[in-house]
C-alpha cells in the first residue's frame, strides 16, 4: 500500500518536536551540563529545517510522471 505523500516530512517534523520537548525538559532540571542544551537546539533546528525542505520539495515536485509509490527501486520487479 502506498505511503501518503508528506509522511517523510511529518516524521522529520516529529523528531524535531521530540527534541524540542527534551530541550525544554532539560531546562527544568538543575543539571549544569555544558553544551547539551545548545547541541539539542542545533539538533531540532536542523531536523525542522530538513522537514521544511522535504515538505517544500513534496509541494513543488512536478507530477508529470510519478513512478510506482512506496517501493525500493533496487527491488522493483
Amino acid at each position, binding site marked *: *500500500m*502506498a*505511503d*501518503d*505523500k508528506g*509522511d*517523510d516530512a511529518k*516524521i*522529520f517534523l*516529529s*523528531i524535531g518536536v*521530540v*527534541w524540542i520537548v*527534551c*530541550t525544554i525538559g532539560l531546562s527544568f*532540571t*538543575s*543539571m*549544569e*551540563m*555544558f*553544551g*547539551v542544551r*545548545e*547541541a*539539542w537546539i*542545533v*539538533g531540532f533546528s*536542523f*531536523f525542522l529545517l*530538513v522537514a521544511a*525542505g*522535504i515538505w*517544500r*520539495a*513534496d509541494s*513543488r*515536485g*512536478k*507530477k*508529470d*510522471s*510519478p*513512478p*510506482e*509509490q*512506496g*517501493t*525500493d*527501486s*533496487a*527491488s*522493483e520487479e
Partner: protein
Amino acid sequence: MAEQGDDSTIEHASGRFEASLSSLAEEDRRLLKAFVLVSIFTLGLGVLYALLLVLVKGGFLSLESTLAYTILTLHGTTVFYYWLYFVQVAVVMVFVLVYTDGVDELVWRNLAWAGFGLMSAGFLIDQIAPWMGAVITYTGLAPLSDGMPGADWFYVGYVLLGLGLLCVSIPCIATPIKAKLDGKVESWSSITFAATLWAALLTVTSFAALNVFGRTALWALEGGGPMDFDYMIAYHVMFHNMHYLPLLSTVLVWYALAEVTTGVKSIFSDRLSKVFFAFYLVVLPPTFLYHMFLDPTISALMKTVASTLAMFISIPTIMVFVIILVSLEASARVSEGRQGLFAWMRDLPWGNPAFSSIAAACVCAAAGGVLANILIQVKFAALLSDTFAIPAYFHFFTVGTISLTFIGLLMYVIPILYGRQLWNPKLMAQLPWALTVGVYLFGVSGIAAGYLGSPRRTLAPEYDLHASIPLLNALVGLGGIIMAIVLLLFVYGLVRTLRSGEEAGVGEVTANLPTVRWEPAEPGAVKAPTATIVMFVALAALFALTWLTFSMVGDLPG
C-alpha cells in the same frame, strides 16, 4: 536513478541491486571507490594496532608503557572515528543512489569530495599526533592532554574529520530531496528515508564534534591551562550520537541485505519501517546520561531517571530486527512450504557471505544487547564503570555487529564496483562465525575480568588485583587474536577481490554469491510463529539476565 539494464538474465535475488549499483554514473563510482578503499585501509591498520594490544593485554608481549598507550590511542581513533565513518559514508551513499527513484547522480558531488579530502587529512594528522606525544586515547582526554606535544594537532585532526563529515552529509540529504523536487518520487523508500535520517543526524553530530573539538583545539593551541568548559560532558553529547549513527546504518544494511540475498522486502508498510528508523533519533536525547553514571555532579535522582529512559534505547533495533525476521519467516514459509518452528531456517542462504555476516552480527548483537541493558542499570555503576567490562561489552557491537555488517555489504559493493567476483566466497561465508567465536571469547572473559575489578585502559597493571584476572586477561588476549586474524582475512579477501578477482559483467559479478528468491508473503497471510517466539524469549531473557545480574553483585565496601 540511472537507467537500469535489462535484467531478464539476472536470476539471483541480488540482481536488481547489482544492476542498479553497476549503472551509477562513473563520477559517483569513483567517489564510492575512494571511500571504500580508505575504509579497507583504516580497518586493516586499526586491526594491526589491535593485534599488538591484545598481545600486551593477554600477557604475551611486553611493551614500554608510553608505546603501548600510543598504540591504544591509534587503535581507537583509527577504528572508531575513521574506519566506521569512512565505511558508513560509503554505505549511505550507496543506499541513497541505489534506492531512491529518479536519482541520476549525487547532488553536490564536489562537496562530498571536499568531505573526503578533509576526513583523509584528519586521518593522517591523527596518525601522526599520538607519535608526537598526544597519548590521550581516542577520547582525546582533557585536561590530561594539557601540555602534551601533538595534542593540538590531535584535536585539529578531529576538527577536520567533523568538517569532512558535515560536507558529506549534505549531499546525502540533498540528493533524495532533489528527487522529490523533480517529481521523480513522492514518498521515499524506507531505505532512502533511513539513509537521509542518518545523514541528518550526522550533520547535527558534526556540529557537536566541531563544538567540542574546535574549542579544545583552540585551548591546546593557546597553550592549555585551566579549561573554561567541561570537556567530558561536551564530548559525551557528541559521542552518544556517534554510537547510534553506526547502529542505525547497521540495521539499515541488515534490512537491505536481507532483501538482496533472499528477494524479501518488509511485508509491513514502508511507513512502519520509517517510524522505527526514526525511533533512533527520538530516543537519543533522553538517554545520553548513561555515559555519566560515575560522575558525582549528577544527582542520584537524575541517574535513576537516566537509567529508566535508557531502557528505550533498545526499542528501534529490536523492532527493525523483528520486521526483518517476521518478513523472512513469513516469505520462507509461503515460498518453501516447510512446517515446524525452525525448518524454514535451513533454506536461508547461509552460504552467502553477506547473509552469513548479518546473521552472525545478530548473534553478537544478542550478547551486546543484554550487556548493554545491564550496563545502563545505575546500580552497577560502582561495580562495572571504568572496568574492562566496558570495552569487553562494546566490542560485541563495534566488531561483532557493526563492523561485521559493513564488511558483509562490502562483499557486494566491492565486486559490483570493480566488476570482479568476490574471492573465495565459501571461506568468506565461514569467517563471520569464526569472528563470532573470537568476539565471544574476548567479550565474556573481559566481562568477567571487569566484574572482578580489572580496569579499562590499563594495559599492564603493576599491582595485584583479583587472582583470576591474569588468566582472564590471557583469554581476552586469545579472543582478540582470533578477532584480529579473522578481520585481517576479511581485509585480505576484499583486497584480493578488487585487485585480482575474476572479472565478470553485470548480472554475473555476484552470481557466485548464493541467494534464494522468495516471494514476499501477503500482509494478511503472515505466519511467523518462530519470530514471535524469538521476540518474546529475547525480551524475557533481557530482563531475566539483567535481574539475575543484580543478585550477582557482591558485597562491596561502598
